[in-house]
């Protein structure tokens, strides 16, 4: 069974771990995974949530200008993030803190942009994790462009596990209505590109519910572009991992693009500037609380894997340590120097710009206490 032969029965969604923490099998997506691996996924989820919560608090304390919380979407992000291979490239929105975690981007670095002290902060080529993109859906085209490059590099379908490369493009239900995303679908299909479109349908495009944006389930849209689409339980980290792996494998092997709709829920506000109580009902939130992505993994580990309390206490302590480190490091993030505007645009600075930088340096040194 492959994705490309799979026709999902409506309204099916792939689930491997129920909200109650029961492991279930899916005929099309078997997942070989050890309890140790599930424990490490639990650690990812718990630390990402703690980091995210700390960032929200820092915004409320005036340390960040804005924060887009990923509360409730941890499984959708960690599942996809852990399905990536080193050479794969991910293109995030501005909310993929869980994917950033999986790509070893230091959480403190993520805060830089939200604190207004950097325009990104990490080298996308080192982490194979592109910079956060604020423009809705624009990264879907960047991902497709990157996938074109991968194809031209001949890094698709060679059969070498460390060479074949897939591209993972993230976006949300709201961005799926954007022209950029639809153009990206067309290019990906036209070029049979090694890209997986990963839509976290968190039900709300700020205040616009998804049913007002699409008459069909979002994953059905893929059919119109000519590639497979599938809906997975976005709060089930195992389903996210399993289906992402299959889709990425198929991309690497040259079978072309896939659309994965991770059906999840934004438990918090769109960003810290938003008040969701103004447009959605608390009953809805309560319903989704029962589908929490972390609680079900914990329930599984306790009831089915017999993991002792010590393990969870250890994770809690580590989470607390992480929070303390982030809090202090956030406040200590340095302001960028004025000359940094010349960095990071050109690999080789053109002579004219080098001259301007020199002139600017001289100008700056003309101030008191410039230290020159």
């Amino acid at each position, binding site marked *: 069974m492959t994705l490309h032969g799979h026709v999902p029965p409506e309204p099916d969604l792939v689930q491997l771990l129920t909200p109650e923490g029961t492991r279930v099998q899916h005929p099309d997506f078997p997942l070989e995974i050890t309890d140790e691996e599930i424990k490490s996924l639990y650690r990812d989820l718990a630390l990402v949530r703690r980091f995210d919560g700390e960032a929200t608090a820092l915004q409320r304390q005036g340390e960040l*200008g804005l924060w887009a919380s990923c509360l409730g979407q941890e499984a959708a992000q960690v599942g996809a993030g852990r399905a990536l291979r080193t050479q794969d490239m991910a293109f995030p929105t501005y909310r993929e803190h869980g994917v950033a975690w999986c790509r070893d981007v230091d959480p403190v670095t993520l805060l830089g942009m939200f604190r207004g002290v950097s325009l990104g902060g990490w080298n996308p080529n080192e982490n194979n994790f592109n910079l956060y993109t604020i423009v809705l859906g624009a990264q879907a085209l960047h991902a497709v462009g990157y996938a074109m490059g991968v194809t031209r590099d001949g890094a698709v379908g060679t059969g070498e596990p460390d060479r074949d490369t897939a591209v993972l493009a993230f976006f949300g239900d709201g961005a799926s209505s954007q022209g950029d995303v639809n153009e990206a679908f067309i290019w990906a299909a036209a070029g049979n590109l090694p890209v997986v479109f990963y839509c976290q349908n968190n039900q709300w495009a700020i205040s616009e519910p998804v049913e007002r944006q699409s008459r069909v389930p979002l994953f059905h849209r893929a059919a119109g572009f000519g590639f497979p689409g599938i809906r997975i339980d976005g709060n089930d980290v195992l389903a996210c991992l399993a289906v992402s792996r299959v889709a990425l494998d198929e991309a690497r092997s040259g079978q072309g693009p896939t659309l994965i709709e991770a059906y999840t829920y934004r438990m918090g506000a769109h960003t*810290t*500037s938003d008040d969701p109580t*103004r447009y959605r009902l608390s009953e809805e939130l309560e319903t989704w609380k029962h589908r929490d992505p972390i609680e079900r993994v914990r329930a599984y580990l306790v009831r089915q894997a017999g993991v002792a309390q010590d393990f969870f206490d250890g994770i809690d302590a580590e989470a607390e340590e992480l929070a303390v480190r982030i809090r202090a490091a956030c406040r200590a993030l340095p302001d960028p120097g004025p000359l940094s505007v010349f960095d990071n645009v050109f690999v080789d600075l053109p002579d004219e710009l080098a001259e301007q930088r020199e002139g600017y340096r001289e100008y700056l040194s*003309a101030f*008191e206490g410039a230290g020159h």
Partner: protein
Amino acid sequence: MAELKPFKLPDVGEGLTEADILRWDVKVGDPVAVNQVLVEVETAKAAVELPAPFAGVVHAIHFEEGATVDVGTPIITIRVGEGEVAETAPATGPTADGGDLVPSPPVDGGAAADRPASAAERPAASKAGRESVLVGYGVSGERGRRRRRVAREEAPSANDAFGVTPGAHAANAVLPTGRAVLAKPPVRKLAKTLGVDLSNIVATGPNGSISRLDVEEAAKSEAPRRGSGSAPTAGAETRIPIKGVRKHTAAAMVASAFTAPHVTEFVTLDVSEMMALRERIAARREFRAVKVSPLLFVARAVLWAAKRTPIINSTWDESAGEIVVKHYVNLGIAAATERGLIVPNIKNADSLSLLELAESIGALTDTARAGRTSPADMAGGTFTITNVGVFGVDTGTPILNPGEAGILAFGAVRRQPWVVGTGEDERIEPRWVTQLAVSFDHRSVDGQQGSEFLADVAAVLRDPGLALL
């Protein structure tokens, strides 16, 4: 050593300037942990809970529930650490940057005695504090710590390149304004090219900076003066502080113009009969002491017409979701005074006789011109007449006095050619002609109602006998 750390109200929503304190979850003396919820605040965007940025004991709470607080103002002070409080005062809130000061906020009575030094500084939350910047990034004192540029002989080339006059900052220290000239390098370059002295330019750009346009304007106004050989002087413009009646008027007009959708209608009419009646009444004994002006008859006509179209004398109550139709008329008369426009009103004008109405209008205008109009005289108006005719003007599009549904502009009464008679008898005669304009709040008053009201006013002025009906 313990330290008193104030927590400043952050901008929790990208560009907000203030928030209301909804609920305090802690009180003075309570121990607090990091990220423990201290307070719930409501901004224009959202109600949010603010977590404690540091652990300690609540030392002082600076605002009561219900208070509106500017971003950047300390709202709570937390005592961090053990022992005596350190000698050095904690960093204060935003420092005054000039400009108008935020009024002193209410202080928690119990905490007033031992509140920190920073609390006393709080009224200094300046205009800068209203700017939409992050706490810790700009509103606070950092802004004032702008490094001064020093003239360095070895760096003239860079100055040339950036259009900067060496030593300009030092020269600015003795400017009458006492403020540094703010202008971007390209603007400085332009000024240099045009030979304009930046220190003599009135800045209209963002944050008090000199814009390209300012420089070009200054160059234009300086050019002829230079040509005639006279020394350029500052003062091509006069800056009038916006305050008092002007400020109030501006706020009222803006509020009215942008909440009530205005419709204005006009009518031109022959008021010769009204003018004749005015002469007969002015000649009467009991009217000897009062001014029998055309305005008196217009007022009377308005009161008569308002009875027939009561909706014109109503208020749009947005918060209650109701239109309040008044069964009395507090008739406002717009008056030009030295302090500016004021609109005192005659209470229950609809219950007055013509003589009483004349007396009231006289008293009202005398009081206004003397500058003795009380706030009570101006409160509670239900309909307004503005007598633009006294300026020799024909008509206008009046803006509603806030809270009212109608306003009538009364134009100049002039001798004008007018078609009279019908059929064989039709001819042009010189007559007393005027124009009326009525603006009404289209939320509550439909075009038909507004038109009927205006037609009624016109009809009774054209033929005062109709008032007998």
